[in-house]
């Protein structure tokens, strides 16, 4: 059994230690907001925060997350995360929406470390998150908008 703390709640999962954190979160804990897209940290749909740092949970062994503070899209509740979600709704960013949990988790981590990011900061922080619908223009605008909201 591996002990996980997800969104401030404790869980015990019967997973092999090398199982990616993603599948523990989705199939064992039952939080499905974190998405499977590629399985090799190329698309960012599975992005969660581990001790505040964005990680690609599809390529992060569940054993390495034991004892750490894991935050998923469902647990995004503090000021920055809420500002990001608000900006996302205001600018109607999602299309199909599948990649957006990951986009929002990456954007939140960016704004926590850089509350007023430049376009270059956004490029650097968001390059790991693919969006096949092509919402990038609105993702960029929404990050700038969220930055205003948290002032």
């Amino acid at each position, binding site marked *: 059994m591996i002990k996980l703390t997800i969104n401030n709640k404790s869980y015990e999962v019967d997973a092999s230690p090398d199982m990616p954190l993603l599948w523990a979160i989705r199939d064992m804990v039952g939080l*499905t907001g974190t*998405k499977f*897209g590629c399985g090799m940290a190329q698309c960012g749909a599975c992005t969660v925060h581990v001790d505040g740092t964005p990680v690609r949970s599809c390529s992060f062994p569940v054993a390495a997350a034991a004892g750490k503070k894991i935050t998923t899209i469902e647990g995004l509740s503090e000021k920055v995360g809420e500002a990001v979600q608000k900006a996302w709704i205001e600018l109607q960013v999602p*299309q199909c*929406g*599948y990649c957006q*949990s990951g986009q929002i988790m990456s954007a939140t981590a960016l704004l926590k470390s850089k509350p007023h990011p430049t376009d270059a900061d956004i490029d650097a922080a968001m390059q790991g998150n*693919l969006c*096949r619908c092509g919402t*990038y223009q609105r993702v960029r605008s929404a990050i700038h908008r969220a930055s205003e909201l948290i002032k």
Partner: protein
Amino acid sequence: MNTSLPNLDRRNFLRISGITGVGLVFGLSANGETAVEELAAAGETFEITPFVIIEKTGQITIFNTRPEIGQGTFQSVPAMIAEELEVSLEQVTIKQTGGEKKFGGGQSAGGSASIRTGYQNMRKVGASAREMLIKAASQQWNVPVTECYAENAKVFHKPTGKSMGYGELAETAAKVEVPKSPTLKDPKDFKILGKKSPRPDVPLKTNGKAIFGIDITVPGMVYASIERCPKFGGQLVSFDATAAKKVKGVIAVETCERNISGQKNEGVAVIAENYWAALQGRKALVVKWDYQGNENFNSKAYEQSLRDAAKEPGAVQHTQGDFDKTFAEASVKLEAFYETPVVSHSPIEPMNCVASWYDGNKVEIWTSTQVPGSIMNEIPRTFNVPAENVKVNVTFNGGGFGRRLYPDYVMETVQLTKKVGRPVKAIWTREDDTKMGPFRPMTYSAMKGALTPDGKAIAFQHKVISPTLGGKKDYDKTKADGTMTEGISEQKYEIEHMKNLYVHHYLHVPVVAWRSVTSSTLAFAHECFIDEMAVKAKKDPMAFRLGMLTKESDTKTILQKLKEVSHWDKPLPAGWGRGVAHYEFFAGQAGYVVEVSKKGAGIKIEKVFAVIDLGTVVNPDTVEAQVQGAAVMALTAAIKSGITFEKGETVQSNFHNNQLVRINEMPKVEVHILANGGPKIKGVGEPGLPPFAPALCNAIYAATGKRIRRLPFDINKIV
């Protein structure tokens, strides 16, 4: 978008169901049960039968027959009903239909069809319901109908100001005869349509609560991962599951058949208590395949065979005037050959399906799909179960782009649940999704054009060389395939002599429709070659095009608008260039002006101006997003690797080598919408795609003098 899937056509549906016109249902919640009363009225033929349910409590449910794949139908389709029903979308619950017969044909998301084919009928349904509610109120109050009006989910009596809510009126309204020709609102009174409106699915897509097919869990469910022959056309010989079954969590190994693009191929599924275990079990499988002679197939040789096939005369797709004579005798003429790649759909949600076979002959499906109607038709036929025993639950789609028009992944899962007797969730890995296809095919284009000495276009030929969608091995080469020549004879340029041709060339790799179908490749050849003709004529590309458009047309309007918004005649900085392109095809029509600058050995996209002509717009905000997204998808198809084949299989396997455009590569796209009315309503999801690549390549020519005739190209190595 054409789908090769069999679909119950409308006439057939009407005959079977006995419904002859606009159907409207009021369901009344009585004693805790939802009683649905079906009413039918004679009316003009319709494509889809939407439903409105009003409960006594006032709860209003509107059914959306068009799967939400990111194109916004979860808002735009119910909005057309809600507008006429005089309710706001905040007041209604929207439910997705699952191919149920009572909702009729057209339960699909494809062909940019939801608005352009549904605009009148959806509004009529809402208007019928409104008129019935008004009539019910007039009966209860015993006043003339003309003294009553509906607003904000209530009916008001003008002289007295009294009102009744829709909930209170529903029971009486359901007994009112359905109006044969309800009066539609004057567009100037619209509260929702034509205005920027928030989409009700957006909040759910920011907090993790939106449910996609891959998120479904049902009791007793097990997980499957399927090993398929890595080489296209290969067949299963035998397999050894001994090691796979030893993996912790694996419970069964079963075969299942994939049916795609006219081919049936067996694969081996590992079924386990969780998905990770299924994946580990799959790695432990030992499978023997018979490659059926396809093991040496490769892109290079196939591409050369397409070039060779271009020498065939081809079947005539369209002819006007005397192209051959005019071209032969012309003093100014040019020829060029254009090539495009195979590309993947790659929605970020991989293919997946949950299926449950129960009680001997009942099937329930939960899946992301563009075609619940087709699934509903195909399962009874394939599995010999009564149609009424099949239920399809459609979730939000994590992208479609045409891939989810093909339910091969659903039919595999049904076979597996039937074999193991438990609900099965089958999930494709990204590698499965990338390597197995189906893909958008390439098209190659042999172009010919002739001009008068003073630069007037007098002859034009577009000859398409390609496989067909759905893989037709016994294709009759005397015929020109309509889909593979989409739009090439529909452009409005007034060129007197034209002869367009088609050469079929077989490909055994599954190829299907992709967002904007064949226009996605043909527009590149067509509009770049028009640019080549402009250069040969020594004319400005915009002026050259407008010079061939003396008659009024939407094409002319689009180009004039592009000229205006892009300040076409304003000089650009040194090292910059601008290009224009547009394309008209079945889904609609759009155009671009792209501005680029030289950046080292490559180019940088500086500005993108888009004009889309819709005639009528439902949600301008969604349209803007769709065009921006189409530009990104077109850019990926133009500058990233695409899909190639070696040794019989796909070279690319995941997003590291089948790359998509990322945020740092996204140009700013300024979208202008033409919605000046008119009888024709045009599509939104696809038209923004085809003209992007030719506008970009025409801009690159203007900036660098380098003519790009083959996609993909490396944007960082132009000169």
